[in-house]
């Protein structure tokens, strides 16, 4: 299943992906309601963090009300109606890629924008891709 893949370098820490993500979901420009975060560390480190749609999602296992499911198409999805906003999944995710919407108070993660991700489109250095991990591995092997 394809998901958001970071090229490993070239991120400039500009957070365009985060703002584009909020706009794609809430039609508003902000940062805290994003589903793709950017870590900026001094002096030289910037990288995005986004849901990996794990096969055995710890977030799903941690959810006390079964609001998180792994769909057949591979997507890990939160049911915003049944989610009680307890944050167990936010703590459980090993990547910190499950967030808590600041105003709706429900868990939020990357949903690939239905297949045309805004973060990939708006990333100025073009270092985000919607790709299948195995395809990335093949490129890496060929790249050598």
């Amino acid at each position: 299943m394809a998901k958001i893949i970071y090229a490993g370098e070239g991120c400039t820490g500009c957070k365009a992906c985060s703002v584009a993500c909020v706009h794609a979901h809430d039609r508003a420009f902000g940062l805290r309601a994003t589903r793709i975060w950017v870590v900026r560390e001094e002096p030289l480190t910037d990288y995005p963090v986004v849901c990996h749609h794990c096969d055995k999602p710890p977030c799903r296992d941690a959810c006390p009300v079964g609001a998180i499911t792994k769909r057949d198409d591979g997507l890990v999805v939160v049911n915003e109606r049944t989610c009680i906003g307890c944050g167990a999944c936010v703590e459980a995710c090993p990547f910190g890629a499950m967030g808590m919407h600041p105003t709706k108070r429900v868990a939020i993660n990357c949903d690939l924008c239905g297949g045309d991700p805004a973060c990939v489109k708006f990333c100025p250095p073009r270092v985000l891709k919607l790709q299948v991990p195995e395809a990335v591995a093949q490129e890496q092997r060929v790249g050598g």
Partner: protein
Amino acid sequence: MSYPLGGYTGQILRVDLERKKTLAEPLPKELALNYLGGTGFAARILFDELRAGLDPLAPENRLIFATGPLTGTLWPTSGRWAAYAKAPLTGIWGEAHCGGFFGPELKYAGYDMLVIHGRAKGPVYLWIDDGTVEVRSAKDLLGRNTAETTDMVRERHGDREIEVACIGQAGERLVRFACIMNNYQDALGRTGLGAVMGSKNLKAVAVRGTRAVTVADDDKFMELVDDANQRVLKQSQAQQMMKYGTPLLVAYKSNIGELATRNHQTGLFEGADRLNADTIREKYYAKTRSCFVCAIQCKKVNRIRKGKYSGTISGGPEYEGIYALGTNCGIDDFGAVLKANQLCNLYGLDVISAGCVIAWLMECYQRGLVTRKQCDGLNLKWGNSDVMVTLIERIAFREGIGDLLAQGSVQAARKLGKGTERYVMHVKGMEISGQDGRTHRSAALTHAISVRGADHLRSLVTVDQLGYEDTAAKRYGKDKLPEICDPYGERYKALVVKDAEDTFAIRDSLIVCWYSCGWPPIFWMSDFAAASAAATGVKEFGDVKNMYRIAERICNLRRAFNVREGLSAKDDMIPERFTREPMPEGPGKGQVANLEVMLREYYRLRKWDADGKPTERTLTELGLADVAAELKRPRKR
């Protein structure tokens, strides 16, 4: 609680540090309609709320942090924000712009603008957490540099995403050109606004914003965003900036003989090749770290791998840092320049004023007007890079000769006397940036008329430095060629400087970045008009004629602020070096700038009187009759 106009949050946050009182008041709709944002808002507030003769370090001075209707949106280069106050360095209009992430975060917390007045009893910092605003003790932050302060505030509130604007040791000691830092490498550099924070015992402002900003016509706005991003990608300058950043200017200015060297004595520097973008990219480049959502990506981080300053890693230097800390001091050691740039960011010093006050002292030393004994025994010969780095430290901590330099070149020369004033390269008390009117004629007028003193960001246009004849013809008319593009001629320069000053007044109110409209510009007034209308829903903004009217209102109001302080045509002067001393060598050899003829034409285009003052008719036409009345009242001395 949504505000009738898109793009704005609709709230102004007022903070009185004396009584530790905070108040969120609605943004008056007519302020938005008549002044748009950023510089426009600040012009109105500073004129209304300050009085002539006020000491910039007095509690009554306002410190304004402002954004605009585009700040925090996806429009490329819209991460900009700005600070305004009566300036400690010059005693007139103070303004400084910055990238980083603080501006958007302030809007996400629900505020278009923060207006701070009064002085806190002890060291404090302002903590803004959406609707919760507190004035907290900063006792343990005192004496910290800007990086430590940022880290400590984030740690204290357990959140690495908090944005912090803070001062370092220089601001605490009221150095007249102390700056305010955000995001470790982004500076509200010029006019000494760091000293305003210092004078208010305000060490930092920390913001967390969990909300979001909406625009009036989202579909139209996003269309404009897509188009804007495409234009940035295709624009030649932007592509070069993406790779090399502003140091690209070093080689170009060296080739045209305009690389200001040894306190602007000449335009050729023998060490230029060791400081140009090719060398930096090859030997020192470490990473690109952009401002908020930026498509131009011009900000670089460099690293020194060998020599005395090995291990230094710092954002920058920008072209101005290479000029001020390097060529203007006769220094070609990039390690020292990067180290000094880093120290300026950590201690909170304006790189340009710091470098230029050192260059002034070096010229006084060259001409025997100061002795080593007077300067802590330091050897101030041109090119002494270690002494330059040492002096940055002494200025920030006001130690030894640093205490004299910390007052700014004009005050330092006044105290030193013995004819040293002659070698201060300033306009209205602010040290000149890295342009030379002799070889880039319109820059002479820009330096002279800029509202905050010698400034290259409020009206600088390079049509007569870079040319691009067909862009010039399209914008100003074929009949203006070739003179408009002639770097050594005065003809049509007032026209382009006035047009740029108006366009940049809008750019600085939206607030978007300087590089959105360099030359040839990616965006100009019509693009700003379209983006403003879509963002705010105000149809009138979409008409370029209205935008020019708002721009002229802002430019006249800022000018009126200075006129009320007693400024007039006599202050629109540049040092004789540019008007009397011919360029000694290089392609521009023999050139001097005839400022008078450009100045007269500029006043005519501005519809000001011969003494450079806005006439009552001009002010009234722009809806500033109250300002005209105020200027007529005799000044209380």
